[in-house]
C-alpha cells in the first residue's frame, strides 16, 4: 500500500529559523493548503444557516411570552389606551411575520435594534459594548488560572495515578461539583474578605479587589480541566506506543510530557476555543455577587424582562461564538492530529 504523498510540509517553527531542528520542534500544518479555503467556505455557510435557525426559533419563542409581561407592575395604573400606545411603540402589535421580516431587514443593515424595556430607546449595541470588557477581563483571568492550575493538577494526578496526590486531586474535583456553587462563592466572598481586609465588592478603584472574583471563577475550571486532562492522559498511557517509548529507555517524565501529554492535548484542544470564547458570557454568580458589570446575568434579565431586541442580539452573539468556536476547534484538531484530513473533518465532534 503506497503511502499517499501529501506534498511539501510547511514548518511553522516558533523561531522562524529554517534549520532542521526547528522543523521538528515546530508545529506542522498539513499542507492541504489547497483544501483550506473550500473547507472554510463550506463550514461558514453551514454556520450561517445554523445561526439563522437559532435566531428565528428564539424570535418566535419570545413572541409566545404573555403581553402583560412587558409592563411589569405598571399595568394597573395604565388606562387601556395607554397600554395600547406602549405596545404600539414597541412594535409588538403587528403580526409575527412582519416583525420577523423587520428584524431581518434591520439586521441586514447591521442595526441590532434598540432595547424596549431594559433601557428603552438605547441601541442594544450600546448596552452590550461596555459590558464585554469586564466579562472578558475576568473570564480570561479565570481561564488562565483554571487552564494552568487545572492542567498541572491533571498531569500530576495522571503521573501519580493511584497514589495519594491522585486521590487528593479527585476529592477536590468532587468537592467543587458537590457543594452548590451559590454556597461556596458566597462563603469565599464573605469570609475571605473578612480575613484579608479586601472590600466585599469589586471596584475599579480598589486594585486588589479583582483577585477574589477571578479565583472563585477559576475553581470550577480547574476541576473541569484537571478531570479532562487526567482522563485523556490515562487513556494514552494504556496505548502500545508508550510501551515502546519506555522500552526505548525514555525517562518517565520524558514519556509523560513529550508523548502522553502531547497526545492527550489533541482532544482537549478541540474544546478549548468554545470554552475560551464563552468567557465573554461571564459567570452569573460571580458578576452578580461582586457587582461586576459584565454580561453575566444579562441574558437571563433580558428574557425575564421580555426585552426582545436585547435577547435577539445576545442570542446572535452567543450562537455565533458557539458555532465559530466549533469551527476553530475543527481546524485546531486538524493541525494537531495529522491523521485527520481537513476535508473529511466535517460534522459536530
Amino acid at each position, binding site marked *: 500500500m503506497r503511502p499517499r504523498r501529501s506534498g511539501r510540509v510547511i514548518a511553522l517553527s516558533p523561531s522562524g529559523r529554517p534549520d532542521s531542528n526547528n522543523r521538528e520542534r515546530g508545529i506542522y500544518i498539513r499542507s492541504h493548503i489547497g483544501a483550506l479555503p473550500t473547507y472554510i467556505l463550506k463550514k461558514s455557510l*453551514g454556520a450561517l*444557516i*445554523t*445561526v439563522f*435557525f*437559532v435566531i428565528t*426559533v*428564539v424570535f418566535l*419563542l*419570545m413572541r*409566545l*411570552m*404573555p403581553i402583560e*409581561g412587558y409592563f411589569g407592575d405598571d399595568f394597573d395604573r395604565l388606562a387601556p389606551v395607554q397600554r395600547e400606545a406602549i405596545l404600539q411603540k414597541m412594535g409588538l402589535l403587528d403580526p409575527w411575520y412582519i416583525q420577523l421580516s423587520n428584524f431581518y431587514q434591520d439586521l441586514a443593515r447591521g442595526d441590532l435594534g434598540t432595547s424596549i424595556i431594559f433601557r428603552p430607546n438605547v441601541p442594544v449595541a450600546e448596552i452590550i459594548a461596555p459590558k464585554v470588557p469586564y466579562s472578558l477581563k475576568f473570564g480570561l483571568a479565570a481561564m488562565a488560572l483554571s487552564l494552568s492550575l487545572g492542567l498541572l493538577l491533571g498531569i500530576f494526578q495522571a503521573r501519580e495515578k493511584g497514589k495519594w496526590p491522585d486521590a487528593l486531586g479527585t476529592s477536590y474535583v*468532587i*468537592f467543587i*461539583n*458537590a*457543594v*452548590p*456553587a*451559590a*454556597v461556596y462563592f*458566597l*462563603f469565599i466572598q*464573605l469570609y475571605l474578605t473578612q480575613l484579608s481586609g479586601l472590600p466585599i465588592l469589586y471596584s475599579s478603584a480598589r486594585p486588589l479587589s479583582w483577585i477574589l472574583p477571578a479565583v472563585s471563577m477559576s475553581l470550577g475550571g480547574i476541576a473541569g480541566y484537571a478531570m479532562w486532562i487526567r482522563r485523556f492522559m490515562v487513556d494514552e498511557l*494504556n496505548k502500545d506506543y508508550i510501551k515502546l517509548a519506555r522500552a526505548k529507555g525514555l525517562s518517565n517524565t520524558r514519556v509523560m510530557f513529550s508523548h502522553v501529554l502531547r497526545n492527550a492535548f489533541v482532544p482537549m484542544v478541540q474544546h478549548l476555543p468554545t470554552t475560551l470564547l464563552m468567557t465573554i458570557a461571564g459567570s*452569573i*454568580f460571580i458578576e452578580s455577587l461582586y457587582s461586576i458589570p459584565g454580561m453575566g*446575568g444579562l*441574558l*437571563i434579565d433580558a*428574557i*425575564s424582562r421580555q426585552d426582545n431586541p436585547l*435577547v435577539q442580539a445576545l*442570542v446572535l452573539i*452567543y*450562537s455565533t461564538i*458557539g*458555532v465559530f468556536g*466549533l469551527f476553530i476547534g475543527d481546524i485546531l484538531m486538524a493541525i494537531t492530529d495529522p491523521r485527520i484530513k481537513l476535508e473529511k473533518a466535517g*460534522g*459536530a*465532534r
Partner: protein
Amino acid sequence: MEEQALFVLAERDVADAERSGYSDYSYWGSTIRVFMKNYAAVFCLGLLIVLLVFIMVQPYLPAQRDPNEIHLSQETFRQLRNVRPGAEFWFGTNSIGQDLWARIWSGTRTSLGIGIAVASWNVLIGIIVGTLWGYVRKLERVLTEVYNVLDNIPSTIIMTLIAYMLRPSISTMVIAMGVTGWVPVSRFIRTQVIIIRDREYNLASRCLGTPTGRIITRNILPYLVSVIMLRFALAIPGAIASEVFLTYIGLGLPLHIPSLGNLINEGRQLMMIPVMRYQLIFPSVVVSLITISFYVMGNAFSDAADPRNHV
C-alpha cells in the same frame, strides 16, 4: 518403593483437561466483584440506599412533623422562629417556625425525585436519539444540524417560557429540565457509538445480515453500559444542581414546596449569622453527600464495568 509405582501411564479423561482450562469468567460477576473491592464506592452505595429507604419511610416514622406546619408556642401564639437544633426540633426550625428536619427530608424527596425523573428521561431519550444519530448514516446530516441549532438556543428561554405556561410545580420543573436536558447526552452517546460502530464485530454481524435494531441492542449498547451508567449516575446530582441554579435565577419551585434548592436559597442569607447558620449547613451537607455518593459510586461502577478492564 512406593514412588516406583507411580511410573505407570495414568488413565486420563479429556474432560478433565477441558475443566482445568475452563474459566468460569462472567462479565457481571467480575464487575460486581471489582466494584465490591472498592470500599469507598460500596460505602457510597450503602449510604444512598439507606438515604433512599429513609426518605421513603420518614413520614411514617414516629414523632415526625408535617414539613409545612407552622409551630406556635402555646403561651404567646407566636411562631417558634429560628429555634436552634435541640431535643424539641432535631434540625431546629426556620424563620417562620417550620420544622427543618421534616423540611429537609421532604425537600430531599422532592429533589431526588426530580433528579431521578429528569436523569432517566434525559438518558433514555439521549440513548435513543444518540444511537440513531451515531449509527444510521442517513440521519447523520439532519440530526447534526438539529443538534447545532438546539445546542445554541439558551435553555433559559425555554425554561422561562415553561414557567409562564405551566404553574410552578414539580412536574413543571421536570418538564423544563427535560426539554433540553437530553441534548448533551445524545451527543455523548453519538460520539461513543461512532467509535465502536465500525469495529470488526459490528461489520461481521452486519455481514451476517443482523437487522440494525438487533445490532444496536446486542452489540453496541451492552458495550456502552459502563458509560451510560456513569452518565446516569452523574445526571441525578446534575439535575439537583440545576434545580438549585433555577431557584437562584427565580424559576425554581415555589417556596411552599420544600426542595433542597429552596432550602439552600433561603439559607444563603444566613451565612454570616453564626446563631442561624445551621439552616444553610444542613441542606448543603445533604446535597453534597448525595452528589459525592453518586459521583464516587458512578465512577467506580463504570470503571468496574468498563469492557477494557475485563481480562
